[in-house]
C-alpha cells in the first residue's frame, strides 16, 4: 500500500479521496488554488500546497507544480479524481516518469478511450454493440454517403469531443454541409482536432452505464449499472440512480456481460465506466470513462463497496478482494446533484458566498460535499456544491427519502438545483421509471410554459 497520496483535485471529490486514503492508513497531500485556501479538502489533508491562482490552467491543470508538490512532499502516488487531469494520458505518463503511480488505468488505455472513434472501434472489435456509423470521415461528401446508408437522423461527432462540443444532430441531407462545417470548426477550436465521424442518432434513448473494476492480475468485475437519463438540456447529468429502473432483465444482463468482456479485451485496469444508450431492447456503446465518476456513490450504496478505496488498492498492486459472485446489489440508491445554478435561467452557474448551509441527515442519507456556511463559491470551477444520496430497500423508499432529504436542505446565498430536483423526484412520470434523456428538457419546457 502507498504511504502518501497527492490528491490532484478540489471540492467534494478531493474530500472523498482524502477519506478513502485515511481509512486505508495513507497520508494525504492536497493541492489548491489561492481562492480555495479555506476549502475543506485543504483543511482535512495532512499537507497542502498552493499550486497557482484561481484559473484552472494555472492551478488544477498546472502539471509541473502538481508533480513538483508530489515529489517534494514524498508522495508515491497521485489520485486525479474526476475532471481536471483525470483523463489526461500525458499527465499519467509524466507522473510515471517521475516515479509516481497514477491511480487509474495505463496511459495508453486512457488515450485510446479518450479518442471516441478509436474507443468505438476497439469496443466493436471486442464484441460490444455500438451505434451504426462510420470511422473518421474526411469530407462532407463522405459524411453524406454514410448518412444515406444508415439513414437520418444522424449525429456528427468530433473524435476528440466532449461536453457536447463538436457535436451536431442532423435530421436531413440539406442540413448536413452546414452542420459538418460548424461542428468541425468547433472541434478544431476546442480540441485542436477537427476529425469527425458520423453515427446513427438514437432518439430519446436512456443513458445507462456500467461500473467496472479490474485489477492488474486479470481480475475484472462489474458493479451493475446506473441510470443517468435525467440530463439537463446541456446533456449534463442531474440525477442518477442504481439500479436502472424498469430495465429489461435480459438487457441488464447483456450490458453487464459485455462490459466485463470489453474490459478484458482492452486490458483495462482500475475503475471505469462504460456508457451505453438503451432504446427498447437495443443497446449501443457510447464511450468509456477511465476515471471515478461523480455518481459513483449510488453504486457504492447498493453494492457496499468503497470504489475509491478499491481504486487505490488496485493501483498499489493488490488483487481484487472479491469475485463477481461475491457482489450482490441490495436495494436502490438515487443521487441528486446540488449545483450552484439557476434552473429558471438555463442552469446558469452562480458564484458567491453561502450564507446558510444545512444538509439533510437521518436514515439512508449520504451527503458528499465540501461546502459549509460561509464558504465562498469561486467563479472558476464546476458549480457542484454537494451530492445528496438516498438509499432504500426499494426504489419507492429511496425516492421518498430523497424527497424528505431535499426538504431538509437549506442553502442560501446562491441559487441551487435543490427545488427543481425535488419537483423532479416527485413527478409521476419520473416516479414511474424508465424515462429517456429527452424527458428533463421536455419537463422544463412544460414547467416554463405553465408559469
Amino acid at each position, binding site marked *: 500500500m502507498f504511504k502518501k497520496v497527492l490528491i490532484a483535485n478540489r471540492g467534494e471529490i478531493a474530500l472523498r479521496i482524502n477519506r478513502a486514503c485515511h481509512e486505508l492508513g495513507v497520508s494525504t497531500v*492536497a493541492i489548491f488554488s*489561492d*481562492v*480555495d*485556501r*479555506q476549502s475543506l479538502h*485543504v*483543511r482535512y*489533508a495532512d*499537507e*497542502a*500546497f*498552493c*499550486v*497557482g*491562482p*484561481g484559473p484552472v490552467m494555472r*492551478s488544477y491543470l498546472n502539471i*509541473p*507544480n*502538481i*508533480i*513538483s*508538490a508530489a*515529489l*517534494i*512532499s514524498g508522495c508515491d502516488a497521485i489520485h486525479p479524481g474526476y475532471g481536471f487531469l483525470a483523463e489526461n494520458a500525458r499527465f499519467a505518463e509524466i507522473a510515471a516518469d*517521475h516515479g509516481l503511480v497514477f491511480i487509474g488505468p495505463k496511459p495508453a488505455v486512457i488515450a485510446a478511450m479518450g479518442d471516441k472513434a478509436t474507443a468505438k472501434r476497439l469496443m466493436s472489435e471486442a464484441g460490444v454493440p455500438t451505434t451504426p456509423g462510420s470511422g473518421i470521415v474526411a469530407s462532407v461528401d463522405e459524411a453524406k454517403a454514410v448518412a444515406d446508408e444508415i439513414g437520418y437522423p444522424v449525429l456528427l461527432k468530433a473524435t476528440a469531443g466532449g461536453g457536447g462540443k463538436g457535436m451536431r444532430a442532423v435530421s436531413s441531407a440539406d442540413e448536413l454541409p452546414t452542420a459538418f462545417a460548424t461542428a468541425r470548426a468547433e472541434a478544431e477550436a476546442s480540441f485542436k482536432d477537427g476529425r469527425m465521424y458520423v453515427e446513427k442518432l438514437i432518439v430519446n434513448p436512456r443513458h445507462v452505464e456500467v461500473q467496472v473494476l479490474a485489477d492488474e492480475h486479470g481480475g475484472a468485475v462489474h458493479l451493475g449499472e446506473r441510470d443517468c437519463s435525467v440530463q439537463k438540456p446541456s446533456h449534463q447529468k442531474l440525477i442518477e440512480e442504481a439500479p436502472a429502473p424498469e430495465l429489461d432483465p435480459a438487457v441488464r444482463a447483456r450490458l453487464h456481460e459485455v462490459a466485463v468482456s470489453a474490459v478484458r479485451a482492452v486490458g483495462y485496469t482500475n475503475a471505469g465506466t462504460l456508457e451505453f444508450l438503451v432504446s427498447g431492447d437495443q443497446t449501443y456503446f457510447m464511450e468509456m470513462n477511465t476515471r471515478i465518476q461523480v455518481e459513483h456513490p449510488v453504486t457504492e450504496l447498493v453494492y457496499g463497496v468503497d470504489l475509491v478505496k478499491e481504486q487505490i488498492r488496485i493501483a498499489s498492486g493488490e488483487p481484487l478482494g472479491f469475485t463477481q459472485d461475491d457482489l450482490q446489489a441490495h436495494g436502490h440508491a438515487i443521487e441528486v446533484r446540488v449545483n450552484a445554478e439557476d434552473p429558471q435561467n438555463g442552469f446558469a452557474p452562480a458564484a458567491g*458566498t453561502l450564507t446558510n448551509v444545512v444538509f439533510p441527515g437521518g436514515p439512508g442519507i449520504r451527503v458528499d460535499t465540501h461546502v459549509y456556511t460561509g464558504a*465562498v463559491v*469561486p467563479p472558476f470551477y464546476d458549480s457542484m456544491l454537494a451530492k445528496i444520496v438516498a438509499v432504500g430497500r426499494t426504489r419507492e423508499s429511496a425516492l421518498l427519502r430523497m424527497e424528505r432529504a431535499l426538504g431538509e436542505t437549506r442553502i442560501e446565498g446562491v441559487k441551487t438545483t435543490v427545488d427543481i430536483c425535488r419537483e423532479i423526484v416527485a413527478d409521476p412520470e419520473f416516479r414511474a421509471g424508465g424515462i429517456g434523456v429527452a424527458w428533463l428538457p421536455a419537463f422544463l419546457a412544460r414547467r416554463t410554459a405553465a408559469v
Partner: protein
Amino acid sequence: MTEDVIATRARALAGALAESGFARVRIRDGETEIELRRAAGSAGARALAPAAAADGVAGEREPVREPAARAADVIASEVVGIVRFLRPPVIEGQEVEADRDLGYVETLGIRNAVRTRGPGRMGAILVTDGQAVEYGQPLFTVERV
C-alpha cells in the same frame, strides 16, 4: 483574487505593520487570508503564506528592535519547488539593485529565477536554502528606500 491583488495587499499590509508597532496583523477577505508577523530579531515585517500548516499560530508577542521601513516588496514564489539561494546569499539590510537575482525555485529540474523588483534594502529572509515552497509563498521582502 488575483496574485497581483494579493501582492498589492501584502505590500500595503507590510507597510501598515511596519508603521504600527504591532507584532502581527492578519486580514481575511472571503477566500483569501494574509498574515504578516515580525520575526524575532528581524527588522522588517515578516510575511507568511497562511498554508494550512501555518494556520492558527499562537499570538506570541515578539519584540520590535528597530523601526522598520515604510514599504516593502514581497518577493513570492511563482511555482511549487525547492528554493535555492545564490552564493553568497543576500543578508538582511543589504542594499540591492532592481532585477537582482536572489536565487531560484527549482521545479522538476527547471530553475525559476527569483529577482528583486525595484532597488532597496533586503528586509526579511522568509525561507531557508533548500526549503520546499508553494505558489505565492513569500520568500523575501525588499524595503523600498
